[in-house]
């Protein structure tokens, strides 16, 4: 037993170090002078914590942070509002056309975004919403294919016996979903919410397309791309800004991953 414990932790630590290396590289680069960044000299010869200050001096980082937080939170909330009920209907309700609709939802992920943006951009321009983050947040009210698929798969693993019990007790489907299913589906919902949040947080192409002409709506990812002169990128400042961008979501992740531990244990119903 002790051997297994040591072995497990050793492997995990070794893997952890490997996963960490490139991030450490970014951290080291963030303290370098701009002359030393991206050279073979990996350890800073002189330390420049002022790089972090410079990030704040050169860009309105707090505003970008606020925009990013609004985008990520809004997108995640809207996504959950639409996707959880849909995933439930696809997983646990029986109706004609269910498989076809499910396949169609999966198909939503298959059109390359480079071409779907062309007709969609025109649509948003006609509604006067370009120059803001709305074209990125509002569509979440109509569901997100990836999240719906993920949630559906998680909901499938919940034994029907629980739902039947609730229905027998007189619960309608909405009641069943909210009272019985949601607590049991916490890991899946946490995963889907986290994915959406982090995707929106690091999304570059979306904000670039819809908000680049309106700097007051810029997100952190756009700010990251602005530390360049005509011919060169200032990787030390970019690295500092990158790490600053990561701090909030690392914290969010650290606290959110607890939700994966099952709160309610299922006892011997299946099999």
């Amino acid at each position, binding site marked *: 037993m002790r051997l297994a414990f040591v072995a497990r932790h050793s492997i995990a630590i070794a893997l952890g170090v490997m996963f960490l290396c490139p991030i450490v590289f970014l951290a080291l680069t963030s303290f370098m002078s701009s*002359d*030393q*960044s*991206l*050279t*073979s000299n990996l350890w800073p010869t002189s330390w420049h914590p002022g790089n972090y200050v410079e990030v704040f001096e*050169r860009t309105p980082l707090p505003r970008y942070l606020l925009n990013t937080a609004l985008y990520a939170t809004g997108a995640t909330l809207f996504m959950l509002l639409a996707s959880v009920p849909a995933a439930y209907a696809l997983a646990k309700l029986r109706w004609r056309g269910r498989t076809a609709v499910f396949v169609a939802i999966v198909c939503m992920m298959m059109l390359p975004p480079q071409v779907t*943006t*062309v*007709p969609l*951009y*025109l*649509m948003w*321009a*006609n509604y006067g919403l*370009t120059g803001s983050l709305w074209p990125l947040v509002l569509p979440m009210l109509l569901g997100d294919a990836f999240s719906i698929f993920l949630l559906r798969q998680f909901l499938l693993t919940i034994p029907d016996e629980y739902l039947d019990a609730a229905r027998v007790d007189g619960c309608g489907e909405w009641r069943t979903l909210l009272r019985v299913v949601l607590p049991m589906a916490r890991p899946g919902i946490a995963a889907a919410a986290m994915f959406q949040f982090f995707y929106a947080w690091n999304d570059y192409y979306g904000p*670039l*397309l819809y908000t*680049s*002409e309106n*700097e007051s709506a810029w997100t952190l990812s*756009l700010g990251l*791309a*602005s*530390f*360049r*002169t*005509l*011919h*060169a*990128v200032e*990787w030390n400042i970019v690295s500092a800004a990158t790490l600053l961008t990561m701090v909030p979501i690392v914290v969010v992740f650290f606290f959110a991953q607890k939700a994966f531990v099952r709160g309610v244990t299922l006892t011997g119903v299946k099999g």
Partner: protein
Amino acid sequence: MPSISRKMAVIAAIALVSACTPGEAEKPVASPGTEASGTVEFWHFFTDREAKAIDTIVADFKASHPKIDVVVKSGQDDTKMLQAIGAGQGPDIGLSYSTDTVGKFCASGAWLDLEQYIERDGVDLNKLPATVRSYTEFKGRRCAMPFLADTYGFYYNKALLPTPPRTLSELTETAKRLTKRKPDGTIERAGFLPLFGFYEHSPSHLGPAVGAKWLNDDGTSAIGSDPAWLELLEWQKELIDWYGYDKLEKFRASLGDEWSADNAFHKGQIAMMVDGEYRIAFLRDQAKDVKFGTAPLPVSDAHPDWYGGGYVTGNVIGVSKTAKNPEAAWELIRYLTTDTGAIVKLANLIKNVPSTTDALAAPGDLGNDPDFKVFLDIFAHPHTSTTPPSAVGPAYEEAFATYLQKYQAGKGGDPGPGLKDVDKQINQLVQLAG
């Protein structure tokens, strides 16, 4: 359920119709002497310090044109501009990073034809060098004006060679002489790294050495029919074979990033290279102990009298089709591209080459810098050439570059038919883009 699918079809059709942009009628040009006024929106791609330089010049403009207000948006790229124009919005004035957009924007009408404004206000286009004029117009439509230029020439390490080579064979001989190998045969220092795709060594930048032509007058590709390209490829292949392609690639893979302080020329790992005028500032900043010299591009042995030129390209600026205030937009463009004071000031701030003959004649501080002066001379030289605008933007350069990647690895077969195939690809792409 037929009724649902019919409804969906109707909705899709309505959506499609709403997606088509209404055509904008071109506004008539105002009569001469009318003073332009109002607000214009100016998009450019610079960020940070260079954006501040632009702001300085725009402030000068506003001071001398108090009736015009300019809203500047930095960090905008070509794709964004095109999508905005396509959606009926977009800036009044757009500044594009490269000349690739000129062909596309002229052909599609995304940028207005400025000819009427030029005629009305008597702008003398001869004040623009011929190459600059050529990369700001397409098929007779002048939809762009040149902003600032980049010139590409030759850099050499003075500690290793006192005078630069003037012909390709001199370059080969010097490259071989200056190459140092380690005992195991791998390259320690290369005299010249002839791989296409390495740093700024591209067919566009090396083409002027042999006077190679890119496009025929009708817009079709001339790569397969111009023997100059074969001359360049043969010269390059000979040098690559001397080094050994695998050893060369291994050496190249070990070199630092072009834009870092580990740049191979900065570290003395290559003795000579082709690069732009901006490299001077980098060298002075990051590699103070490297004694470098600047020179024009070496030329083909058959035409030693061509020596003195190089490659030139630049930023371009134009008025959008969807501009709300084209008159004021033209005023700003005229100022930025023909006012000698503004051009010289901006060129000195951003350290680029000014694009009019007047500015070149009196370029301020830039002219006092002997290394930079070489590039000013290259810019004005008759044998300097550029990459012509095309309806498919950089397609011809990139189709050629893709073939060259295979060719220099020895997997491209015979260059004669290979280049003709490249021609075919390019011509088909031109057709596809309409």
